[in-house]
């Protein structure tokens, strides 16, 4: 099996064995397969792209083709121990509502996203006055799927406004951990574990 993306590796390391997990925007199912095989997790997924869903089914995973913005309503309350939303929050129409839904269907939620407050992004805007195209955000503004750019500080504010509990937070630059204090400008990726 290929190595997991760093934010997924953080999530995989922190999911309790034997739990029930829904990975929303699960892509080709790499995380779900790792959780199933490594932690005996009851792993379910939701993915928009039919090719990825087919790939997941071919891995023996239970994955529904669906849209994080509209299709989470079909899951009952607290159906999962964890709802996972990796690298998808910034592509949803209403990230705040998606967050509510995550913590309705899951008792806890892992949310990972690229930090738009990273210093390279800030520098690009400051010096060039242009929306950044970086290693992590390789797509130009007009064709990026990222429609709600969010920084670590923005996300912390939203979590506070919703009175959610941060059970854990991990900040990454490549696969290196970044301290909480430096995260806002040095983290490329953030992973939060939330509960209500």
């Amino acid at each position: 099996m290929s190595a997991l993306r760093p934010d997924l590796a953080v999530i995989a390391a922190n999911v309790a064995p034997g739990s029930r997990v829904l990975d929303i925007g699960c892509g080709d199912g790499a995380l779900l397969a790792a959780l199933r095989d490594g932690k005996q997790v009851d792993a379910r997924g939701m993915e928009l792209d039919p090719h990825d869903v087919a790939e997941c089914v071919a891995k023996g995973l239970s994955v529904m083709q669906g849209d994080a913005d509209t299709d989470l309503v079909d899951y009952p309350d607290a159906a999962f121990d964890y709802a996972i939303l990796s690298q998808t929050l910034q592509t949803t129409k209403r990230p705040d509502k998606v967050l509510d839904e995550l913590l309705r269907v899951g008792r806890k939620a892992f949310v990972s996203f690229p930090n738009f407050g990273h210093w390279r992004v800030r520098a690009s805007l400051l010096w060039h006055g242009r929306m950044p195209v970086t290693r992590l955000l390789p797509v130009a503004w007009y064709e990026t799927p990222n429609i709600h750019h969010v920084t670590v500080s923005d996300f912390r504010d939203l979590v506070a406004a919703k009175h959610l509990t941060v059970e854990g937070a991990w900040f990454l630059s490549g696969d290196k951990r970044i301290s909480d204090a430096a995260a806002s400008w040095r983290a490329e990726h953030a992973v939060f574990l939330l509960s209500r």
Partner: protein
Amino acid sequence: MVEPALHAQSHVLELAQPLALDGGQQLGGVRVAYETYGQLDAVRSNAVMIFHALTGDQCVASPHPITGKPGWWVRMVGPGKPIDTDRFFVICANVLGGCYGSTGPASAGPDGEPYAMRFPVITIRDMVRAQVGVLDALGIEQLHAVVGGSMGGMQALSFAANWPERTRAALVIASTARHSAQNIAFHEVGRQAIMADPKWKGGDYYGSGKGPEKGLSVARMAAHITYLSEEGMHEKFGRKLQDRTEKTFGFDADFQVESYLRHQGLSFTDRFDANSYLYITRAMDYFDLAEEHGGRLADAFRASKARFCLVSFDTDWLYPTAESRTIAHALNAAGAPVSFVELSAPFGHDSFLLDVPALDRVIEGFLKQ
């Protein structure tokens, strides 16, 4: 590429017990014709049952007994294929009410005369009951999977809901948990076409030469339109004329699409019994899995521990994606492990029978587990 013919074994089983039908009747002396491919393993755990569609038959991967054409799912079933006969013992039976060796309206009743319209109205669940009889006779307690497209998918759902212990997985393609008003309406057009043919004679046409060929072929023509997509029809035929350069200002088959449908209709009458068509379409119209289980579809699957996979096609307007999604949501609500995917294919409802490589991958991957 010419492939060597797959070794199929043909069998006919006579059920020892009368079949208790949903309509309340007991049907005795039921025969079920079925084919098998591959080898049943020592612990009888590698069997896959395929259910055929409305006008299908048990010759899933062997030449058709009348037309000689390759089996209807030969692209899916065989050694090294997605439903791998090197690994699985594949069973496919002709449905109850059919006309390929299983008991149906053309079969002789207790008095030796064909049942015709004295044949009891049957349901999808009755069809499955007859096929469970095959599993009992073969000593197969639990299947690796049930698989079906269209009406075959209805049988797969009915099997998983009503015999939950007897399969570990269910793969349902281009199907529905209940027939919609539109589905029933199209079937009714077909049935009325058959019954309006004077040669139908209230169903008693057996032994009097050709039956209601005209009516049956019109029924097939109407149904065939529902199996294609508008886009697919437009691409294949457009407004092209058939073997002529000018319109004739008459009612010949000027257009290619007319000629094609007439051919489909006529050739169908060579291989299908009109009364079977009436009974099988009726069974499909009566299908409503939720109704059978107190009105909530999720309750139909409460006892199931099987894995499910639902596949729909974006151009299928007969059993559109929303129908598969409804089933998937019910399975989610019942806590069953379920996958659902809508595949893109230009062929409408018939996509499940045609060249859609993504479907091959899904079926192979789902059955591999």
